[in-house]
């Protein structure tokens, strides 16, 4: 195949024919179109004339071009051009189709699958043995290649989905090597990225890219076609919180044009359904830049709920960065027990704490009571004023509370605080004069009570404090201020460099005790604990044995202090976050968990830990003020216990970047593998997702109720990078995978050429004068023919192109066609104009009267009111749509059949949605009150199925008697009798003026009116407007009354209780008089 850009030619030899076009040009020029022949009697006169233009007239240029175009098109058509040609395999031997199948393949997966399917189809046609290998499939490396029937592989192919990790070319190496001398052709659908490979400490990747190695090996076996994307997938990298904003890098493997991508942040209340998009930021990739940062600023509360970041429009796992608890900005309450010294901020611990915490958390100074959500006492209120006001609704809002030199706490607050800690709060205390005084006081108390006995352990302190601290390096002391020792490995500060500059001159001391429940997170060089911590309930109490300001030590002045605060903040449980019920109980509590490290884990931790020992944290001590992602492996990796434990996925990404809850039966992952994955990105078997430490049930002796930490594993780990795949062997054919479908242009070109030829024929006729005016029909016929050829050709082209595509369009078309509403003309009319309906009883006589009666009412309505209904319509309750009518008049006859369920449902819906059902038993004045008339009994039977409200006789001041005319009764052909309406609709008007309708759906408008006096008979008139029935006593006056009631009924149906204020008219008029 020969290709020009996106155009390929299957028969390029035809293109040589284009060289003959100039010849054709001359030929066409020399043969002008046939002349026009004209009958002309005066020829004889012409015969003697000397024609000065003897040279033959040339073919007109436009005609020449037309013919040339047609010829060129024909040649092009026969060269069988293909737009976006697909890769075609070249040889006839066995065919190996290799698919990378990682997340980087997900964006154009359908194109990949299509290309592979095409190759399979071709192979099947040629009967070539074929094998299909996905490099990202989980499982052991392949031992050997097994070539088989290509058709059989199609099912496998269609079931293949991109994996959320990177492909591993080494999977195939062995099999290729084992294939011996047997040659085969390979089609490799790669993702354009270098394979994931370990890097040395310097960040250099040793050796060859495994992909390149595999490509070499494959090229040695036979022709190798590499089918890759034009632009490899872009990914999100290294989310971190920096300076209060969430920062994420967008990386790409190949530098290219300038590009701006938008990164969306998804989160929100986890109880309010799936994560919503709550924010976004742009990352502007400069030309040729490989990465750009997006900084997403979000309110802390919102940021704490974030679930993931995702590049907009990118559908693959690499474009998603899952965020775990570490990315929640903690909210920390700062409570000071120090004396306020106005104007001397550097002597206040608050100042240092604020400065150290602000990069990591939202720190807020408040009172302890406010932090606990307790009502403020007078002093606190005075001190914090508006602050506490604002804090009050956020009771328990803090993830951590820092107490700077708070000594005695009032019992109520203390109790609340202890409870808060036991629920999982992190309490960080700094020593100071007050705490020291408290220690002395406590010691004295306990001595007084029982000599020798230890003071009771304060639940809010990790250790018992000795009365009186120690002072080092004072004027009268020989000792020197002590420096920090290296942090113990099980400390959350592990990895931070214990700065030499820090010196401690004064501290409070812990009482040594037999049972050491506390853990020491930092020591001085002489071994004295400087920072101690103790689990209290589910929470933790941490004590800095020095002040938060610089009078006892230089710690608050050191950069280390900020880093320590950062680590502490990371320790803080996300009490208020999306995973609120699960606090990130970091694995620092080694003392507890070590004993719990089960035998089960010991086995698989042993060897694995040796080979994939996570790097100890490096550089974190140097990093000034950010929780970078290094904290993630640190969370797992710093604690041996966590490494040994099992982690269970709770949510996982698929290759397309969709997050779904993980199967609860998903196999847990050993900690050290997870640590590796967290650093390097997801790998086969460890899908990106959120992992939770398998709870107590997994570990014998695990603390009941311990909440597991959560670690997010992303497709692209912080220690890996995206690099383009460059090591393709020279022999390989590189082709770009195109998303677009292959389109054979031949039919379209042929059709176009034929059209041109048809036009040429027309033009020749025209020039020769054969195309006369009376022949437009023929011309248009030709033109139509040509057009239909074109259309047909294009259809053929599309059909060819879409042959493999699922027939969406056609399958969609059918239901659309059938779903075209066929609206009954009567219903259409009823919907478009105002139509009063009557129920067809099936008794022709009754229906006729109904029609006549409603027609009479309609005429009167039109004449007297603004309501101008159209001709009334009959309704079959069983079949017709009732919703288009507002009033249904239902004469009850004994011959009416029972309602079917469908009709009942319809009637119920009609009444529920605002329709007015007017039932007329025509029993004269025997309704329900004075013993049933014959039809009323029947009505009872009919109505039992209906969902009717309780009914009652309409009172005299019911709205129905007030909507248009003020009526006293509702006579029909018979004497006025009770009209029954839904009870509660009787517009008992309260003083507030609104109809008291308790929970009625229709604003207290009765959905049903039942009468018995044959109104419709009174309304009925013939064509000429003469009454159809004789009126009983009362004559025309009563007929008029009946009509007025009919008008009121219609008004009631159309205006509802709008006229209910008419009931007040007396009162209103009275008021006007005054």
């Amino acid at each position, binding site marked *: 195949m020969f290709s020009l850009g996106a155009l390929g030619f299957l028969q390029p030899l035809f293109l040589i024919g284009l060289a003959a076009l100039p010849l054709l040009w001359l030929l066409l020029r020399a043969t002008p179109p046939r*002349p026009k022949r004209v009958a002309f*009697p005066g020829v004889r*006169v*012409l015969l003697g004339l000397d024609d000065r233009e003897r040279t033959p007239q040339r073919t007109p240029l436009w005609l020449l071009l037309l013919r040339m175009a047609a010829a060129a098109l024909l040649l092009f058509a026969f060269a069988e051009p293909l737009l976006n040609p697909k890769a075609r395999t070249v040889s006839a031997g066995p065919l190996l189709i290799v698919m990378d199948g990682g997340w980087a393949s997900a964006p154009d997966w359908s194109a990949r699958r299509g290309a592979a399917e095409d190759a399979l189809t071709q192979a099947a046609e040629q009967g070539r043995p074929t094998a299909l290998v996905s490099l990202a499939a989980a499982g052991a490396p392949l031992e050997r290649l097994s070539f088989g029937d290509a058709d059989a592989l199609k099912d496998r192919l269609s079931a293949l989905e991109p994996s959320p990790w990177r492909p591993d070319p080494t999977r195939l190496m062995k099999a290729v090597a084992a294939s011996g001398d047997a040659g085969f052709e390979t089609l490799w659908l790669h993702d354009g990225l270098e394979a994931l490979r370990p890097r040395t400490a310097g960040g250099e990747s040793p050796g060859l890219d495994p992909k390149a190695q595999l490509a070499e090996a494959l090229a040695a076996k036979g022709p190798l076609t590499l089918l890759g994307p034009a632009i490899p997938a872009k990914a999100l990298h290294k989310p971190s919180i920096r300076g209060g904003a969430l920062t994420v890098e967008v990386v790409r493997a190949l530098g290219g044009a300038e590009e701006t991508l938008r990164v969306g942040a998804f989160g929100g209340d986890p109880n309010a359904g799936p994560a919503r998009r709550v924010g976004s930021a742009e990352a502007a990739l400069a030309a040729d830049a490989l990465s750009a940062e997006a900084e997403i600023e979000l309110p802390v509360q919102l940021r704490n709920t974030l679930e993931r970041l995702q590049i907009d429009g990118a559908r693959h796992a690499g474009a998603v960065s899952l965020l775990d608890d570490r990315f929640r900005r903690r909210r920390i309450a700062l409570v000071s027990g120090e004396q306020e010294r106005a104007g001397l901020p550097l002597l206040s611990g608050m100042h240092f704490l604020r400065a150290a915490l602000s990069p990591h958390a939202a720190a807020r100074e408040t009172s302890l009571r406010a932090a606990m959500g307790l009502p403020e006492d007078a002093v606190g209120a005075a001190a914090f004023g508006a602050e506490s006001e604002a804090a009050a609704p956020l009771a328990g809002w803090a993830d951590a509370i820092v107490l700077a030199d708070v000594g005695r706490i009032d019992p109520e607050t203390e109790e609340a605080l202890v409870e808060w800690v036991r629920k999982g709060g992190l309490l960080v205390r700094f020593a100071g004069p007050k705490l020291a005084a408290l220690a002395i006081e406590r010691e004295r108390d306990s001595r007084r009570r029982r000599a020798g006995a230890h003071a009771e352990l304060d639940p809010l302190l990790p250790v018992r404090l000795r009365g009186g601290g120690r002072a080092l390096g004072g004027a009268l002391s020989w000792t020197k201020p002590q420096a920090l020792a290296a942090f113990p490995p099980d400390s959350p500060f592990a990895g931070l460099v214990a700065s030499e500059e820090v010196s401690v001159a004064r501290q409070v001391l812990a009482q040594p005790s037999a049972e050491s429940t506390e853990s020491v997170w930092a020591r001085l060089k002489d071994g004295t604990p400087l920072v101690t911590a103790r689990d209290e309930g589910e929470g933790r109490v941490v004590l800095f044995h020095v002040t938060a300001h610089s009078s006892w030590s230089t710690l608050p002045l050191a950069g280390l202090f900020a880093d320590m605060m950062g680590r502490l903040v990371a320790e803080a449980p996300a009490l208020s976050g999306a995973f609120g019920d699960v606090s990130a109980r970091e694995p620092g509590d080694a003392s507890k968990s070590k004993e719990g490290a089960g035998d089960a884990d010991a086995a698989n931790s042993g060897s694995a830990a040796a080979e994939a020992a996570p790097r100890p944290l490096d550089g974190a001590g140097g990093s000034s003020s950010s929780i970078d992602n290094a904290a993630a492996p640190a969370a797992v990796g710093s604690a041996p216990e966590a490494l040994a434990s099992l982690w269970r996925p709770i949510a996982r990404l698929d290759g397309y970047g969709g997050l779904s809850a993980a199967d609860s039966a998903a196999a847990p992952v050993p900690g050290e593998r997870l640590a590796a994955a967290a650093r390097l990105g997801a790998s086969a078997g460890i899908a990106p997702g959120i992992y939770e430490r398998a709870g107590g049930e997994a570990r014998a002796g695990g603390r009941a109720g311990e909440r597991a930490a959560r670690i997010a594993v992303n497709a692209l780990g912080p220690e890996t990078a995206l690099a383009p795949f460059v090591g393709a062997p020279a022999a390989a054919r590189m082709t770009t995978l195109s998303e677009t479908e292959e389109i054979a242009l031949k039919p379209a070109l042929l059709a176009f050429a034929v059209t041109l030829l048809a036009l040429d024929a027309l033009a020749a006729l025209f*020039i020769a004068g054969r195309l006369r005016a009376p022949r437009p029909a023929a011309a248009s016929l030709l033109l139509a023919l040509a057009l239909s050829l074109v259309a047909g050709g294009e259809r053929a082209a599309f059909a060819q192109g879409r042959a493999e595509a699922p027939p969406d369009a056609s399958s969609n078309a059918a239901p659309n066609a059938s779903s075209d509403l066929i609206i009954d003309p009567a219903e259409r009319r009823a919907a478009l104009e105002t139509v009063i309906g009557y129920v067809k009883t099936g008794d022709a006589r009754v229906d006729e009267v109904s029609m006549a009666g409603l027609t009479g009412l309609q005429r009167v309505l039109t004449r007297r009111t603004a309501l101008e209904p159209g001709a009334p319509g009959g309704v079959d309750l069983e079949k017709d749509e009732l919703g288009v009518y507002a009033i249904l008049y239902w004469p009850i006859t004994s011959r009416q059949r029972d309602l079917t369920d469908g009709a009942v449902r319809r009637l119920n819906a009609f009444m529920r949605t605002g329709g007015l059902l007017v039932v007329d038993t025509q029993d004269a004045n025997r309704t329900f009150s004075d013993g049933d008339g014959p039809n009323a009994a029947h009505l009872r039977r009919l109505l039992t199925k209906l969902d009717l409200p309780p009914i009652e006789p309409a009172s005299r001041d019911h709205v129905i008697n007030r909507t248009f005319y003020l009526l006293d009764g509702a006579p029909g052909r018979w004497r006025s009798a009770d009209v029954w309406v839904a009870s509660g609709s009787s517009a008992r008007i309260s003083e507030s003026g609104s109809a008291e309708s308790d929970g009625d759906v229709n604003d207290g408008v009765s959905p049903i009116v039942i009468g018995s006096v044959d109104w419709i008979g009174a309304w009925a008139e013939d064509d000429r407007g003469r009454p159809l029935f004789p009126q009983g006593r009362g004559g025309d006056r009563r007929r008029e009354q009946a009509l007025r009631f009919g008008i009121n009924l219609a008004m009631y149906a159309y205006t509802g209780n709008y006229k209910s204020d008419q009931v007040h008219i007396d009162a209103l008029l009275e008021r006007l008089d005054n």
Partner: protein
Amino acid sequence: MSAGGARQNERSLRGDAPRSSAPRLRSVAESAAATHDSLMARATRLAATVYLGAHGRRRPGVGETFWQYRRASPGDPLGSVDWRRSARSDALFVRETEWEAAQTVRLWCDRSGSMQFRSDAAPLEKADRGAELAAALAILLTRGGERTALMSGEPRAATPRPGIGEAHLGRLIATLTVDEAAEFGAPPDLGPARGGRVVWLSDFFGEEAAILAGLEAAASRGLSGFAVQINDPIEETFPFDGRIVFESVGRSLSYETERAGALKRDYIEALAARRARIAEAARRAGWRFMTHRTDESASPVLLWLARGLSETLSG
């Protein structure tokens, strides 16, 4: 319609389609008769536009109509003296009648192929216009008591006998509706005719030599006459352009040009020259020549012919 004309018509029709069935023959005959009728009507209408006033030779001669009384001169036969007139005076008067010797007018209406042509610009064929003129002229002449004869353009046609009267007129007009097969009309053989007048109605697109020879022959026999060249408008305006093959109606002649538009001036000049030559020959033969375009009204030509004829006949 006169019976004779119909007979002749039918005869020719029978000749054309000898094996036609009777109904077909009848329908053809009826349509032919309709043509004849319409020609008759048109010709009558046309003739009515020309009122010649007192016709006659306007000189004394052998006739029935009183012409004048004149004093008897010596040598007048006694019997010619009108005694009643002479009795009113002393002198003798002779009653003279107008000379009413009937002249023969020979009409040639060219109905050859080239005359059977009509362009879009013209209301009717040249031949039709010619027939119309010929018929109208025949009507006028018959009314004037002259003898008319319709000469056929067919090469070996029998020499027509001049005739007079309505029946003859009918036959003549019927003959006028019969088309000729020849492609170009040539002046007819005059036969033994001497004296009288000749009227030629043709486009004169035949061989120019034949036309000039015809004029000469007529002149040599002392026949003077009138030649009317009837042309279609496009034959004068030549509204053509582009690559065209011009063909005569019978396709015997053709002329191909690449750019007809460039020929227009030459053609018009050539046509004018041809006309001038024919007109010159006519003048020398004592004929009068006129041109007529079919998109123009026929009355002026008819008037011109009638005036000319009455002048020369009575002059």
